[in-house]
């Protein structure tokens, strides 16, 4: 609760001192499992700000969406570790001017994944959720249960090593520091251990669910092309029907487009109405980028996104002998 109070105070101060025109944060949503983005321009509204397990949205998406509603404004933004990396990435890519953004870091202990919560409650509707830190209490019609926080966290949080903003102007609360996470790559390694056919069967089962609503693309702060390659019609690269190969190619190419730019915030996976485990591929790509090029997206504000950079002596084991 202290974090939330400090955050509110910080926002009020920033607004009062005219350091920012607007603050982007989260407020309590209309559903117990979802906080919702809020844009604050006057101090009174700051009391609506919350920060807890439900604050999953990566707010830096609002810097880059087509409306560019923050253009020419000084914007304060609440950032978790991953959100901060998104902001940094957007700064590196000249989408945001560092001077126009005030990053307020918040200590993140992970955000929830709705589908994991619903698995806990056997699909029963959750009417109230109390974030008690290590345990989270879920209440609904005729039941109340508590869950270990780790059991309902988004897969992105379970593999997270940078829960704090690495780049910030103000940090509210205690930074958690880097989290050594030995099991971080477990899921990927397990997947890699399968045979090619098994991998394909598994991929196919996941991606066949895609209905092409593009929620994954639209909530992604790294996806901000004016015209997305799937929307181009001359040439039309990809069919728009729910043909599986079209959907698969869309997701492969989207993954490559965010290679070295994906901060693994998991917004895409949480936004997916079909519960596709989108992040697995993103994380695999991020792993390759880290292994091969030593780069982690959005970590270094003086860096360069991996895919526009190169070194001459890179490993090229994949080139035919």
């Amino acid at each position, binding site marked *: 609760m202290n974090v939330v109070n400090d955050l509110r105070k910080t926002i009020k101060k920033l607004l009062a001192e005219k350091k920012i025109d607007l603050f982007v944060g989260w407020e309590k949503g209309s559903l117990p499992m979802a906080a919702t983005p809020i844009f604050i321009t006057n101090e009174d509204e700051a009391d609506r700000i919350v920060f807890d397990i439900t604050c999953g949205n990566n707010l830096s998406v609002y810097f880059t969406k087509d409306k560019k509603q923050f253009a020419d404004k000084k914007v304060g933004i609440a950032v978790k570790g991953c959100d901060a990396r998104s902001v940094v990435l957007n700064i590196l890519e000249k989408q945001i001017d560092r001077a126009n953004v005030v990053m307020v870091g918040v200590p993140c202990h992970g955000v929830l994944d709705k589908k994991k919560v619903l698995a806990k409650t056997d699909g029963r509707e959750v009417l109230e959720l109390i974030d008690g830190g290590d345990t989270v209490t879920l209440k609904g019609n005729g039941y109340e249960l508590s869950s270990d926080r780790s059991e309902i966290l988004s897969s992105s949080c379970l593999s997270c090593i940078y829960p704090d903003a690495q780049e910030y102007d103000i940090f509210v609360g205690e930074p958690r520091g880097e989290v050594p996470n030995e099991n971080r790559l477990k899921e990927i390694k397990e*997947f*890699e251990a399968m045979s*090619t*056919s*098994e*991998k*394909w*069967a*598994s*991929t*196919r089962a996941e991606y066949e669910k895609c209905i092409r609503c593009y929620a994954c693309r639209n909530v992604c702060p790294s996806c901000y092309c004016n015209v997305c*390659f799937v929307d181009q019609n001359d040439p039309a*690269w990809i*069919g728009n029907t729910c*043909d599986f*190969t*079209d959907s*698969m*190619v869309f997701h*492969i*190419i989207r*993954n*490559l487009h965010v*290679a*070295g730019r994906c901060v693994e915030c998991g917004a895409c996976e949480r936004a997916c109405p079909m519960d596709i485990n989108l992040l697995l*591929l993103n994380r*695999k*790509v991020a792993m*390759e*980028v880290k292994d*091969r*090029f030593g780069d982690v997206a959005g970590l270094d504000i003086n860096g360069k996104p*991996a*895919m*526009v*950079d*190169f*070194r*001459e002596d*890179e*490993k*090229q084991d*994949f*080139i*035919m002998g």
Partner: protein
Amino acid sequence: MSEWQPKILAILCNWCSYAGADLAGVSRMQYPPNIRVVRVPCSGRVDPLFIMKSLQSGFDGVLVSGCHPGDCHYISGNYVARRKFAVLKPLLEFIGIEPNRVQFSWISAGEGERFATVVTKITEDVRKLGPSTRLVKKL
């Protein structure tokens, strides 16, 4: 019906690999007739989308070839391309596309023989895999 023959798309850079293919031709080197060549200015021009699109439209294999590192006509095009391929190839393998379907090589203008070897190798690799099915779009 005649025996199935692999159909392979070869995307070659203009300055090295395409010239290498030319050399292989004028030197009358033998290599399998299974490739269809698309010439691009530089391997850096190759959007991974081209590769996916080829697989989707029924090619059994894709070969992308450019200048050796350091020899790019545009100084650094193939370095940037290398990063793309370095990510694309493991990703395709990860999702379960057979590793040998999509291959990359560096072939210089003087390496006619190498061109013949590379084409022979990918043709045999793809022949072993059989017809591509996984990403092929059926109409």
